[in-house]
């Protein structure tokens, strides 16, 4: 770990682990066995793309476990170092169940105790909940232990973002803006002609990588590009770039993603490829107006449902409510934390609680979708925002507009 004085991206992982251990003690958890990607990112400060786990003892440093072929790299990237990143493999004593359960037994003086696990469900595929099979195997291997669901320990502690995390998101957003500028420079003045969605995704990726982005992290297809009718899918929240060629007279949606030290850039910008009709311009102006209104409204103290109500009223007054998808955000955190807002305390388990009251220094993606499938047009806005008591700050600074490209 670096020095907090010199490093704007510093996160105090030692304190983070101590906070988890304090909460474990309160909840009578002897060992925490994390398996979600969000938990592993949040505790190790490294990217663990394979099935991985983290074992947090009651005191001292945690140990991460991952597929042996990637363990040395992960250890090198993590603040934990090689003594606290183990690799598992199909060898006697080294498969993930036996290795981890032996490790846990060594932590527990009597071999007995309560082991916190992560069990639940998510819309987000790479979430990493403990599977039924894994649960059964750990339960058998740790027969003197009680496995208890404890993911809320991490969820509560990870809710409010520290300065280092916010700065990582800001840097990732700065990089995303470079990607957007590169796309604009490439498509303007007829540059779009003959270009495909995949090519635009690549232009953005190259520019962002040159600026230091580690990858286009989104599981929805990396850089999501949609043109023409593909911008207007009902719901419209996932458009991996296709081989479709960009055409004059169509909308173009550019939703690109960068990664900086597990902080995530995620900004969608929209264009009309000229000549645009008055009707297309009307749709575009509607969308820009509601995005502006939404960003003016976001702050600590409001709730997702309150914000949605106000925005639907706004769109009703503007005569475009039929085209608004009634959702305005999704959760975000260090890599792997990309779905629900807040805690698992809403009416539908593991979905955002519509009455979650936002707090200062929560970070979320302001995510809005405008979809008119009948007219083959739609727009998307995404931008990480940090909430303060009287306003929100947009991390991507790329100017909000829907430009007509000639």
């Amino acid at each position, binding site marked *: 770990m670096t020095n907090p004085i010199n490093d704007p991206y510093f996160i105090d992982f030692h304190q983070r682990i101590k906070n988890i251990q304090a909460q474990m003690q309160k909840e009578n958890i002897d060992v925490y066995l994390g398996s979600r990607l969000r938990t592993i990112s949040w505790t190790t400060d490294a990217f663990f793309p394979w099935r991985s786990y983290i074992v947090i003892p009651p005191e001292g440093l945690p140990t991460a476990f991952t597929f*042996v072929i990637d*363990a040395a790299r992960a250890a090198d990237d993590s603040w934990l170092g*090689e003594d606290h990143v183990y690799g598992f493999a*199909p060898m*006697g*004593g080294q498969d993930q169940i*036996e290795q981890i359960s032996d490790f846990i037994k060594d932590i527990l003086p009597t071999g007995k105790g309560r082991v916190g696990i992560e069990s639940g469900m998510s819309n987000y595929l790479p979430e990493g909940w403990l599977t039924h099979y894994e649960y059964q195997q750990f339960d058998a291997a740790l027969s003197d232990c009680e496995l208890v669901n404890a993911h809320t320990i991490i969820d509560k502690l990870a809710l409010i973002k520290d300065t280092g995390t916010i700065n990582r998101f800001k840097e990732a957003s700065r990089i995303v803006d470079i990607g957007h500028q590169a796309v604009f420079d490439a498509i303007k003045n007829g540059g779009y002609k003959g270009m495909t969605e995949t090519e635009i995704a690549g232009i953005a990726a190259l520019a962002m990588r040159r600026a230091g982005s580690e990858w286009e992290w989104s599981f929805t297809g990396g850089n999501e590009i949609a043109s023409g009718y593909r911008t207007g899918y009902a719901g419209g929240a996932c458009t991996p770039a296709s081989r479709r060629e960009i055409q004059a007279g169509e909308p173009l949606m550019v939703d690109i993603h960068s990664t900086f030290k597990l902080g995530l850039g995620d900004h969608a910008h929209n264009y009309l490829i000229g000549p645009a009709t008055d009707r297309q311009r009307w749709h575009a102006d509607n969308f820009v107006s509601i995005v502006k209104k939404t960003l003016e409204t976001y702050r600590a103290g409001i709730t997702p449902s309150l914000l949605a109500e106000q925005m639907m009223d706004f769109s009703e007054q503007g005569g475009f409510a039929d085209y608004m998808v009634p959702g305005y955000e999704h959760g975000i955190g260090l890599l792997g934390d990309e779905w629900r807002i807040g805690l698992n305390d809403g009416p539908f388990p593991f979905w955002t609680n519509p009455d979650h009251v936002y707090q200062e220094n929560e970070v979320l993606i302001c995510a809005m979708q405008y979809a008119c499938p009948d007219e083959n047009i739609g727009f998307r806005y995404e931008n990480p925002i940090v909430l303060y008591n009287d306003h929100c700050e947009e991390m991507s600074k790329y100017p909000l507009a829907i430009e007509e490209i000639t």
Partner: protein
Amino acid sequence: MTENFKYLSPQWRDEAERRLKSELPPERMNFVTSSMSNIYKNCPDGSEKFLYFKFEDGKFAEMLIGKGESPKPEFAVTGDYETFAKITRGELNAQKALMTMKLKLKGNMVKALRLASLSDRLNKVLATIPTDY
């Protein structure tokens, strides 16, 4: 005719130490500092034995044979006496023994991967000792 040593006997241990010191100088052991224990289950006399090695900066530092609990090593390899005997006789590959769960490794696998070739060198030296199992 060369006299054979009884596997894991004090005489076998002394011969092993002599050969390891002479045939595995620190540079052959990559100046490694580590320790390893073989845990022998189901020995011919029904007991459980251990064979503990320690290297410091590549120098042979310690080799212990005993019954019961081994000094805490960085890596512990557990298996039947007969499995270890087959490996030492060259009848079974150690890696295959691990992959078929005839042997069980405890310790950091990432570090173990780096030491696999050293362990192989060590086993090859031990295999040269004329031994009765």
